[in-house]
């Protein structure tokens, strides 16, 4: 059974602006935040997985986005080195929690920015890593050194899709859901080279963070607002669970950003 890490949104709010979605003038509606997060928690809990919770910390509003805690492969946890100082405080809490739960902590050199599962997703036997807005490409090399697997680095070109998990979601059948325009032509080309049966998401649906989905075998938990994608996925035999995510979208996050796999893979190769 898959294990997932979530963080309750007790301190969540739009307290700074570090991506184009965030505006302090457009704050989150607290009751709605709680309801939407609980909707995700409840949905995941009913599926074939075990949900763990890390205690939230005051003054770290984005800790709710656990996908950016780091990358877990087997019993090893590579903590993030956040690019923005606003989020840097999250790293020791996540590392401490993971260590307490028996994971070996493998830090990257401090000069390499890396934002965890948000920018590192396995598709087939390849780890696809996004770079430019948040993670440095050289962090990918360090991750490849640690894991010993093929790491494909793809450049993200649209600031709205600043992490790879906002525009790319690998599927267990070897394909992926993606929004091609979020990548440069070389990134698009290499993704096409390595994955078959890619599902292109329409721009208006991508804008609802439809790619930011949690995939648990044949179940896919994704934000509302992507009827075409849901129809396509259903045709492929997936069960979709669309959820309202408006309050988290205000911070540039949705279902996948709120979730980290422990581990994402048992083995890197």
């Amino acid at each position, binding site marked *: 059974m898959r294990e997932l890490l979530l963080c309750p949104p007790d301190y969540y709010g739009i307290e700074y602006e570090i991506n184009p979605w965030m505006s302090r003038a457009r704050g989150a509606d607290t009751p709605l935040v709680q309801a939407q997060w609980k909707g995700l928690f409840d949905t995941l809990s009913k599926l074939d997985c075990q949900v763990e919770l890390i205690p939230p910390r005051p003054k770290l509003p984005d800790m709710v986005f656990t996908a950016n805690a780091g990358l877990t492969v087997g019993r090893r946890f590579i903590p993030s080195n956040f690019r923005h100082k606003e989020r840097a405080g999250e790293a020791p809490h996540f590392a401490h929690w993971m260590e307490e739960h028996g994971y070996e902590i493998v830090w990257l050199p401090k000069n390499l920015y890396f934002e965890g599962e948000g920018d590192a997703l396995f598709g087939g036997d390849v780890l696809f890593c996004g770079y*430019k807005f948040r993670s440095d*490409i050289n962090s990918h*090399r360090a991750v*490849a050194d640690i894991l010993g697997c093929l790491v494909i*680095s793809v450049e993200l070109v649209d600031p709205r899709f600043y992490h790879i998990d906002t525009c790319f979601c690998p599927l267990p059948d070897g394909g992926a859901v993606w929004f091609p325009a979020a990548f440069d032509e*070389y*990134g698009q080309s290499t993704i096409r080279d390595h994955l078959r049966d890619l599902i292109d998401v329409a721009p208006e649906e991508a804008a609802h963070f439809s790619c930011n989905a949690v995939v648990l075998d044949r179940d896919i938990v994704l934000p509302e607002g992507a009827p075409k994608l849901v129809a396509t996925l259903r045709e492929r035999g997936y069960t979709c669970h669309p959820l309202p995510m408006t309050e988290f979208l205000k911070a540039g996050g949705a279902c996948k950003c709120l979730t980290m796999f422990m581990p994402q893979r048992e083995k890197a190769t």
Partner: protein
Amino acid sequence: MFSETVELRGHIIDSLILPKVLDQILTRGAGFKIAEIKIGQKRADQSFARIEVTAETSEALDELVLRLRQHGAETVERADIQLAKAPEDGVFPHDFYVTTNQQTFVRFDGKEIEVRPAMMDSAVALDRKKRAARAVKFFDVNEGDEIVVGHQGIRVVPVQRSTSHTDIFQFINTMVDADEPKSAVIRELGQELRRAREENGKIAIVGGPAIVRTGAGEHLVRLIEMGYVDRLFAGNAFAVYDVERALFGTSLGKNPDRAFAGGGHENHMRAINIIRACGGIAVAVQKKILTRGILHACVEHKVDIVLTGSIRDEGPIPGVTTDVFEAQKIMRKKLADVTHVLLLGTVQHSMAVASMLAPTVKTVCVDIDSAAVERGVEHQPLQSIGLVTDVEPFLRELVECIAKPENASREK
């Protein structure tokens, strides 16, 4: 060209990072050379590439490297130059770096500085405050000047074969021997000189007395009149023969217009005396004493005349610089902006000029002696052509090609 070496590591082949980086270099008008590449053998193996990036300006290079860093390119730290102080005026420190005539850069404080001018057989003096590197001769160096020693931190960039176009200098094989056809080459040279003039290039003639003695002077006069000569470099003898020919019809007693001409062996001495009496060539032209010939045409058409002397000189005629080091300085100064040089029928003067040229100056050397031609062109690889021939038919044909380009194009 300014250069930086960058290294890429990781899954740069599968991720298409290597082709992306190379494309970015090219689309920004810069160039690259892959100095080393190691491709991973197994799927998870990482690859490595060391790439030398070159750009026209230091700023363009900095901006490009900054962009490449985004894609993981890391700059390779290179060592700075080593410096030592000149122990006294006119003496370089032991182990000073001796320049070639190729474009040279020295790395100081992590930045490359171009050595100016590109001048062979010099040392390199560094001015820390101005962040400038200067090629200096013995007479230029003062006690305490900081001079580059050893080879560390020095990069020499040989002139590359052009990838965008092929001109006559890169197309033919440097030397056209006495028994090889020359008309096509001379036609191309005519076009090259026309282009040079249209693009505000500066054309210099380095002339030997053979030009006057073979009767080629009238062709050179036409070249001057058509505006194809900006500067004339010659020795005292050239000037004397030209004046003798203008005043007496002979050059060193021989009349190029007649098969047999007697007497006149003293004419060159009389010619020198007349110019000395006038006070100089320009005055002789002004007083209408000198009314024809090459130097007359130069004065009339405001061509810079640079006359330098030698041990064998008679006279000399006024205007000839006889101090050889002073002459070197003047010649270097007058050659600084020259783009095309024709070395015609002179060995010593041609070699002196050739040793002072920047490597990009296009050079044509014409002499009846193939050894002289070889020595004239050896400093300018890919930028020079040598023709082993009498200078008179060469100049005659060149002037015809330039005067009547339609003939040249019809024959093509």
